[in-house]
């Protein structure tokens, strides 16, 4: 099978020479958030990162706090075991299950993701990613109406009206402003921030709001109404000012002013977060936003982009899609892929007590799923892969401690705008990579299935 050989098996590190026991890796990539900044110069001394030039506060924490965990690489029911024993146990759990699920995947390389989907195929399991609990609704909206979007370099070079809707990038994606969306001096916005109007729309005044020229503090749960107000204004439809004020908490005149600015912009951008996708309306909110952006292209150029959180959640969407045809929530129990969010998404298969075994990769459902889902997960055998000790690894039947992607392992990640970026690891880990562990499980699962 094709995944036996990874294109990224040969790492090309960017080590630039050593001085007094330190190594500098230039243009290394931070995988902490969906910005996937690939301009970090890392200084390594004695397998510790002592400097991470250009990294933001989150990135610095990501790099500085990284140390090879001195836990065993494998624990079976809490007791140290060899990786080979763990692989054998994992393969048996997965092949003996009737409804095995695979979940997580957004914080690992696409090479590892490809193997994980292959395991799902072999065992006739369900493959789902953390997309189903973040921008899954945006993915569904995409399927309904499409999306008008671009790579982040287009925003940096052309964007002159930037709207942040339902997100707080100042704290969740700290370099987004400086690297992509607000500050860069781009080809058609040579004065950087001075050439841009920044607009925030959110239910609360976050740190992001302070960086905006205009801020719309809308009523909670009124994103859909606010977006349709703008759609109506774009098309010149008369709407009732009182209803608008009541529905959105904002005067119609302010929305009208915003629409004038939107039409006057040369290249408008709406960057939207989970404030839109995980509140009342969910995929209908995302759909309203994508439709508004599409409508705006009758007047000027306008694009939209979901602000993806995890370092390679976009890669997970891509890999699951190219191998199965669907982006997340994919069931292969009939021998071919079927897609149905709500039915095959992990929080649902667990809360409904359907799944009877799980393979969890780089995710922590024990920390953030609903209580019924957590309780059920705790009651079934499951395998967890994670570089860190987490509530999920603690309750796992088989827990693998794996090397951290980007810091210890090479591979490919996809930035939030689908741009693939290669990783230059800083130093090796004593633990195996997700790719190695999953490949071993895949080989054993394939043997047991024949």
């Amino acid at each position, binding site marked *: 099978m094709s995944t036996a050989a990874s294109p990224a098996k040969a790492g090309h590190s960017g080590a630039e020479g050593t001085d007094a026991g330190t190594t500098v890796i230039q243009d290394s990539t931070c995988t902490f958030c969906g910005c996937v900044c690939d301009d970090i110069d890392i200084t390594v001394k004695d397998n510790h990162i002592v400097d991470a030039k250009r990294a933001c506060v989150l990135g610095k924490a990501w790099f500085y706090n990284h140390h090879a965990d001195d836990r065993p690489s494998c624990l079976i029911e809490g007791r140290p075991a060899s990786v080979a024993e763990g692989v054998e146990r994992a393969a048996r759990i997965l092949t003996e299950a009737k409804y095995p699920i695979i979940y997580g995947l957004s914080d690992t390389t696409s090479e590892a993701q490809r193997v994980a989907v292959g395991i799902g195929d*072999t065992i006739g399991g369900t493959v789902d990613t953390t997309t189903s609990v973040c921008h899954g609704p945006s993915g569904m909206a995409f399927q309904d109406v499409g999306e008008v979007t671009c790579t982040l370099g287009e925003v940096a070079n052309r964007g002159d009206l930037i709207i942040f809707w339902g997100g707080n990038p100042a704290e969740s994606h700290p370099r987004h402003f400086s690297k992509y969306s607000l500050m860069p001096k781009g080809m058609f916005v040579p004065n950087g921030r001075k050439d841009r109007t920044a607009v925030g729309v959110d239910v609360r005044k976050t740190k992001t709001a302070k960086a905006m020229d205009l801020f719309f503090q809308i009523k909670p749960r009124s994103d859909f109404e606010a977006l349709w107000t703008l759609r109506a204004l774009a098309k010149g439809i008369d709407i009732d000012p009182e209803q608008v004020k009541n529905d959105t908490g904002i005067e119609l005149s302010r929305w009208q002013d915003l629409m004038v600015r939107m039409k006057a912009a040369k290249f408008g951008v709406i960057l939207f977060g989970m404030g839109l996708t995980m509140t009342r309306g969910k995929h209908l909110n995302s759909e309203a936003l994508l439709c508004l952006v599409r409508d705006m292209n009758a007047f000027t150029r306008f694009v939209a982009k979901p602000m993806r959180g995890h370092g390679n959640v976009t890669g997970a969407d891509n890999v699951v899609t190219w191998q199965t045809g669907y982006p997340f929530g994919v069931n292969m129990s009939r021998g071919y892929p079927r897609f149905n969010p709500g039915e095959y998404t992990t929080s649902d298969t667990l809360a409904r007590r359907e799944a009877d075994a799980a393979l969890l990769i780089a995710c922590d459902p024990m920390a953030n799923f609903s209580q019924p889902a957590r309780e059920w997960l705790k009651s079934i055998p499951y395998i967890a892969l994670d570089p860190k000790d987490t509530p999920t690894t603690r309750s796992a039947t088989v827990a693998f401690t794996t090397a951290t992607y980007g810091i210890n392992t090479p591979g490919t990640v996809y930035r939030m705008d689908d741009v693939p970026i290669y990783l230059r690891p800083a130093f090796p880990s004593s633990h195996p990579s997700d790719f190695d562990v999953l490949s071993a499980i895949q080989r054993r699962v394939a043997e047991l299935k024949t």
Partner: protein
Amino acid sequence: MTSGYFKIAGGTVYDPLHGIDGERRDIWIRDGKIVEPPSDPEVRSDRTLDASGLVVMPGGVDMHCHIAGPKVNSARKMRPEDKRKGEKVVRRAGTRSGTVGSVPSTFATGYKYAGLGYTTAFDAAIPPLAARHVHEEFEDTPCLDKGFFVLMGNNHYVMQSIQRNEPERMRSFIAWLLGAAKGFTPKLVNPGGVEVWKQLPSGNVHGLDETVANFGVTPRQIIEQVARAVDELSLPHSVHIHCNNLGMPGNWHTTLETMKTLGDARGHLSHIQFHSYGGGEADETTFNSKAPPLVEYVNTHPNLTVDVGQVLFGETTTMTADGPLGYYLSNAFKSKWFSSDTEMESGCGIAPIEYKNTSLVHSLQWAIGLEWYLLAADPWRVVMSTDHPNGGSFLAYPQIIQLLMDRTYREDMLKQVHPAVLERSTLGGLSREYSLYEICIITRSGPAKILGLKNKGHLAPGADADITIYTPNDDKTRMFELPRAVIKSGVVIVDQGEIREPLTGKLLYVSPEYDTGIESDIAEWFEKYYSIRFRNYQVPLDYLHEAEEVPC
């Protein structure tokens, strides 16, 4: 003791490159290649496939399709409905499951191509910023050798070099970029027009001499200079062109001008059917075929090659690097719309559509494609394609073969389309029927030659042992949709429709030489405008799965 030989014995062989037209022959294979028969008559093959009474051809070569990368994958994401009701590929021991529809998943793409006897395919439009994505998908697309064309018709560095009248710099950049992405040849898609689309609402260029704002260049300059650079670099394939004004009534003028602009330079005009329309400016009521004058021009200019981009009736998904075209189509069909602009490089548009035989426009598109095949004097320069999935899926290739080989079948179908086709095209008067020899040319030997692949498309010693064996049948659809066996690199990968050994296949790329002194200039420009680092852009050799450099 094993000899290492595999023999295909006694088949009726078609190898047009060597003038072999249905002769009974043996073919010897060793180490994945076609070889001379062993000189010692005592040497036996380890395995012999009795092909008596069967048709033996080189493996099919699709030189223009959309099968990998961000555009194709966005189409997969956007269209669950297309797959839900479509055929399913079920997991078997040794093979993966998948979905089909108009945009199959990766493994399904490989299996389905191989199932039709195709062993090589080129993706026609890749933004180099996404090259790694393509290499990853290619590794998951088995059974095929693969390559891709690199989008350059709206590349800022290319346009700036033209504006500054620095052809050497542009040539070096093209060579560098092909090597950086591990691509195959420059692709021009609506040259200049996509940059205007990025700048203005519904922006586009409408003729070869309109100036692209902020860059001061015209589509004509881009076509002329990139074509010349490709020839100077002696790339195996020519520049690959998707002309301006695709799909617009009256666009044949633009197409003819593009051909003339090429002068003596080599040029491949892709999905030419979509560029052969007469009629008033954006006026569908006057829509008609202008294939005959364009065919005539190509017939008399041996530097030009085309693939057809045949339209088939039914639902499909249009996908293009021609951003403004995607917008136009989504508005025309009132469909969902995906658009994505890639910084410094390209655009992308996707819209689902349905071609209906009750529609005059669609019926004419169908007829114009067939006119191209049937009027072309030299089958070596007209290649079968649907521009998959734009005109229809590659799965329709057997049906196209029957339309070309079986006049009665074609005339029956002509009776079912919009009647005005008979007045507005020449199809009704065309009686030509393709021979198997000619089919072999337009589906494998011709495209391999046009691509400059010396080891593909023929069956002489030295060729890759990519071979398809068909059971003769008067029903040509049946014959070509279910080969008896498909051999890839000397291995039987398909046996009577069943996938046996899904080899990964290799990447075919070029690595032309250039003045490396230019790299610092490229790096400076790159760091100023791109959102990733220059060093992280280039795809090194160790990133690739199996790969073969095609010499320039």
